[in-house]
């Protein structure tokens, strides 16, 4: 297996070199930028596929493809990479989602509104976008590969910067504020986590995750573990996000461009939960046992709270963002049970959420492009106007509400099953209560998704819009095909109530009158793999569970 230890390095080096190459000759690459991003991320995807193919599934609990080099010898920090059953799916997911983002941005003629790689008036900065996404990929993959606490932290932080730019440069109207909030909030969490990591280092004397996990907390007193778990847990909880540390998420999601939302929901949130599975729980078992009831309580509050918040949202992207809070509540509940089945469920839900919410954000982005708004009450009859888009939205919503047979169900079910029979150190009645609340949260999840579907996809299309001769409106507002065309020209007006109403009305009319294409080819290309995977994992959950189970058992020390 050591023969393939170049694989993790290659996974990091390819996107990094790809990004650096972009800095060199400005004009030469401009024409082929779309293909360039696609090619680089495609190579990463192929590498990830090789990794998936050559992984020894019989030994999923063991670290494979390991690479261990001294990095900062003075501090004992090592460049230690490796993959096991827990991180393999996440690495593959990251490579896949990044690739799909490039597909979304670059396939076809590039004229789609979401396809920012096409230079257009107003500056879409395609080269910077490719660069940002590739650097983001380095950070994301590195986080899942790192086996050294400090290395993990470094990659964890690298991700923030490109994501900040992604929101701040290519985002919506209030993007600056959202981006600043995102980076300040997550940085604050990271600092707390860093303190926790350093505390572990100071107490345990090593930064090596594998060794720390193998010790199962030996050598650290209970009090030390509790404090360290608290610090690390807060840092990870901000990223996850756990209630009540979630408020950066809706803003970031609402303002981020489509690919940003997809990667944010699909991968970035996973980094927080991955940290729980990789660091917080195995390294600090006693601390985890002491704080698990609190984690579980906040998790179920998050489930209910997120669902209720979704129920009253008007903005589609915001609603999906809050739904992430609820789904991540299930993931955290799974972790809080400290059982193999619960953590299994959490990891499954993690991957499933990445796929499903990624798809949902792609869809929300597509809808927002077409209607120039994500305000749900002003979008009706999607199934009539854009039947295919409406169908895929229905599919994604149903997958997200946890229908058995689709990927979303198994994670939630296993998390609840874990709560039904939590680890021995935990209070069973308490976790039974959590389970019941979580179950009710599942009902509420179904409620808001169905209400959303009912509002958006059902009903007659545009019943509120009065048809007007096409020439008048379109002539007044310029070509409606531009991303910000109709909005920008209208948005300069006074920002009082009537202008708002007028904006909405006109936007709606333009949306209806202008040519609203159903699913385009590049969208199809980006979405179909997600749909297939959601179905695949839903129908055959064993694919993932057989991978994570031995690794989780090893981390919890069930077997050894």
């Amino acid at each position, binding site marked *: 297996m050591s023969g393939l230890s170049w694989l993790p390095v290659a996974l990091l080096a390819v996107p990094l070199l790809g990004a650096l190459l972009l800095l060199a000759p400005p004009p030469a690459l401009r024409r082929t930028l779309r293909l360039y991003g696609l090619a680089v991320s495609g190579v990463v995807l192929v590498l990830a596929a090789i990794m998936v193919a050559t992984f020894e599934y019989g030994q999923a609990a063991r670290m494979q493809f390991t690479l261990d080099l001294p990095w900062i010898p003075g501090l004992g920090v090592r460049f230690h990479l490796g993959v096991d059953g827990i991180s393999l799916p996440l690495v593959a997911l990251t490579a896949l989602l990044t690739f799909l983002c490039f597909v979304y941005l670059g396939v076809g003629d590039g004229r789609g509104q979401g396809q920012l790689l096409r230079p257009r008036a107003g500056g879409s900065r395609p080269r910077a976008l490719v660069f940002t996404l590739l650097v983001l990929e380095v950070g994301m993959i590195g986080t899942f590969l790192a086996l050294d606490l400090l290395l993990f932290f470094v990659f964890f932080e690298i991700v923030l910067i490109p994501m900040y730019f992604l929101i701040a440069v290519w985002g919506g109207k209030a993007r600056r504020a959202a981006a600043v909030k995102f980076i300040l909030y997550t940085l604050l969490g990271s600092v707390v986590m860093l303190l926790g990591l350093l505390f572990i280092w100071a107490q345990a004397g090593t930064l090596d995750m594998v060794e720390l996990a193998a010790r199962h907390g030996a050598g650290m007193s209970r009090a030390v573990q509790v404090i360290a778990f608290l610090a690390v847990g807060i840092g990870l909880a901000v990223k996850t996000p756990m209630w009540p540390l979630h408020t950066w998420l809706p803003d970031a999601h609402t303002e981020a461009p489509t690919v940003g939302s997809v990667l944010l929901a699909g991968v970035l949130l996973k980094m927080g939960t991955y940290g729980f599975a990789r660091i917080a729980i195995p390294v600090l078992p006693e601390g985890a046992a002491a704080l698990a009831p609190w984690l579980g309580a906040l998790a179920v509050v998050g489930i209910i709270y997120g669902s209720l918040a979704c*129920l009253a949202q008007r903005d589609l992207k915001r609603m999906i963002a809050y739904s992430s809070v609820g789904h991540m509540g299930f993931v955290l509940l799974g972790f809080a049970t400290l*059982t193999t089945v619960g953590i299994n469920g959490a990891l499954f839900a993690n991957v499933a959420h990445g796929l499903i919410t990624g798809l949902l954000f792609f869809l929300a982005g597509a809808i927002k492009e077409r209607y120039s708004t994500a305000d749900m009450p002003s979008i009706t009859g999607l199934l009539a106007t854009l039947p295919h888009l409406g169908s895929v939205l229905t599919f994604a919503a149903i997958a997200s509400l946890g229908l058995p047979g689709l990927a979303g169900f198994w994670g939630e079910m296993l998390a609840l099953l874990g709560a039904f029979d939590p680890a021995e150190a935990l209070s069973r009645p308490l976790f039974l209560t959590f389970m019941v609340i979580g179950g009710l949260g599942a009902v509420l999840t179904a409620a808001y998704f169905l209400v959303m579907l009912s509002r958006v996809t059902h009903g007659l299309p545009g019943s509120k819009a009065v048809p007007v001769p096409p020439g008048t409106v379109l002539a007044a507002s310029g070509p409606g095909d531009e991303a910000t065309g109709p909005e920008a020209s209208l948005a300069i007006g006074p920002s009082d109530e009537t202008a708002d109403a007028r904006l909405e009305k006109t936007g709606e009319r333009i949306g209806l009158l202008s040519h609203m294409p159903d699913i385009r080819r590049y969208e199809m290309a980006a979405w179909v793999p997600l749909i297939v995977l959601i179905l695949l994992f839903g129908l055959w959950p064993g694919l993932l569970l057989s991978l994570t189970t031995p690794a989780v058992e090893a981390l919890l020390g069930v077997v050894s």
Partner: protein
Amino acid sequence: MSTTSSPFPLLIVALPFLAAFAGLLLSRWPRTRRPQPGAAEAKGQEAGHQHRGGNRRAAWIAVLPTAVSAALALWLAAAQGFAFFAERAVDPVGADYGEIVTGTVPITLTLQADALSGVLGVLVTLVALAVQVYSVGYLHDDRRYPSYSAFISLFTSAMLLVVYSGDLLVLYVGWEVMGLCSYLLIGHWWEDRSNSRAAVKAFLVTRLGDVGFLFGIFVLGISADSFRIADVLAKVPEMSTATLVTATMLLLAGVAGKSAQVPLHTWLPDAMAGPTPISALIHAATMVAAGIFIVARLFPAFLGARPTLDVLAVMAALGMLGAALAALAQDDLKRVLAYSTISQLSYMAGGLAAGSDHAAIFHLLTHGAFKALLFLCAGAVIHHVGSNLMSQMGGLRRELPVTFAATTIGFAALMGLPPASGFFSKDSLLLAMDGAVSGAALTDAAALLLYASALATVVVTGAYSARAWLRTFFGPGRTIALPEPQPGTAHVVDTREAPPTMLIPIVLLAVPALLLGFAGGLHLDVGVATISVVLALLGSGVVYAFWRGDPVADPARILGPFRVPCERAFYVDSVYAALFVRPILALSRLVVSTDDRVVDGAVRGSGRTARGLSGVLRLAQNGNVQLYVSGVLAGVLLIVVGAVMFA
């Protein structure tokens, strides 16, 4: 009990499943550009041709696999000699398809057919086949027929999964997918907001019960250390009563949701917003019967939990009479049938509570046949009239002779008149309840309540059946100007009788509705049978008398002041809206404002505090360089002093 290996159950489940995907993906291939909805009316003709071709292909994709499944299911059941009716146990037939590790109790993928699932599989596939064929005619102009038929295929597959599954969690998968299909099909005409709302309501109410169901599975599975039904049942004697009561009570929640039993029954009447064939398949014959099936499947566990049976008996008693009374007051023909379904399902639940799973399943089978028949007939009537309301029907027996005959058979079975199938199954149910009064299965009060309620229900059933029958097919014809077909109703056709694709299933279903009763072997209790027939005739006689007095007026006026509450189904919906829906919506608004003001407010507050503090410090940044340098030097001085003093 050893399992005989056979791939049939898998094939039976998989065929409709594949058909569903094929139907969704292939029907419109190669894709033709669909004109915009505004232009659709202008190009109606052309568009009609376009999607008619697709519909035809979709119809074949839908009907053929279902037919093969039905044949296989029949063969499977026949190979076991229809052991259910003979009340003997047979070795299950099926196969194991591996395990899924979960970290605790694994999930086993087993599909198997025993005596119970064998006959139920036949019922499901046959009704599904009938409905698929019927729908070809019923929706032949519908642009969305391909997805519709695919959803029916998916539903068939899910229901068959429930029936054949050997593992509780796999069963749960099918159980939920059924709910999804029900949602999608109720909302088939989603242009109308009320249909969409009904679909959401159906899904949510059943999902609420399903959460309990899932927890019940957890309790059983963890305490038996296996999710396999056979293992669970084998471990039942070792489980404590508390465990069993908890588990069965939780399961009961799911049963109540799926089978529309009393606390969670409100979705079923609204679900009639879907196309009528759907009501026949999902909301009469199969899905709603799944709850009864589950109880029968896990009956040993229920028998070990007496309190659960008592609860079930009370639920059934309330449900059967209340729903029957509500059925008596409805004007919408489909809602009459819907409440009738609730009432009949309560009958089955009552039979289960009385300790006779066999009678309950028997009634389930006959009910599946005759209620599906009634719904298909109602569909034909509605298709003809263009309205669901009985006040707009009347005198249809001459215009729709075949439908009239079939409906008559259906209502006879519903009322329990010999020789229709319902007579025999209802008789065995009443017999079981009669036995429960003297037996020890139930507490006396519950048994008495159940039996009395069942008898009263027989009267009311006779009354509402007669009312619906008379108001639909007799009396003066109320020819009214047909309104433009709204998106929420069936398309109006001008043929005198329904097209053959609709009539053939009706005729075919009429046969089992009439004759299925004889399959159970004729063990009649003459006393009970006589009482029930007399009571049913009494109910219908009263209604007939009132109707003769004034054929135009609604015989429901016999209810007097009680009529409005009955029509509103005793205001349960309003109570739920006030108790649950509105508080939750209010709570969600509260959460949003809290999130903004408190949770995010704290975040923003920290930002504002930092900015406020920086504002104070900003006062020093007035641009005066000398001040800056003063600060720098003062700082250096402090450092020097510190270094000198502490070094």
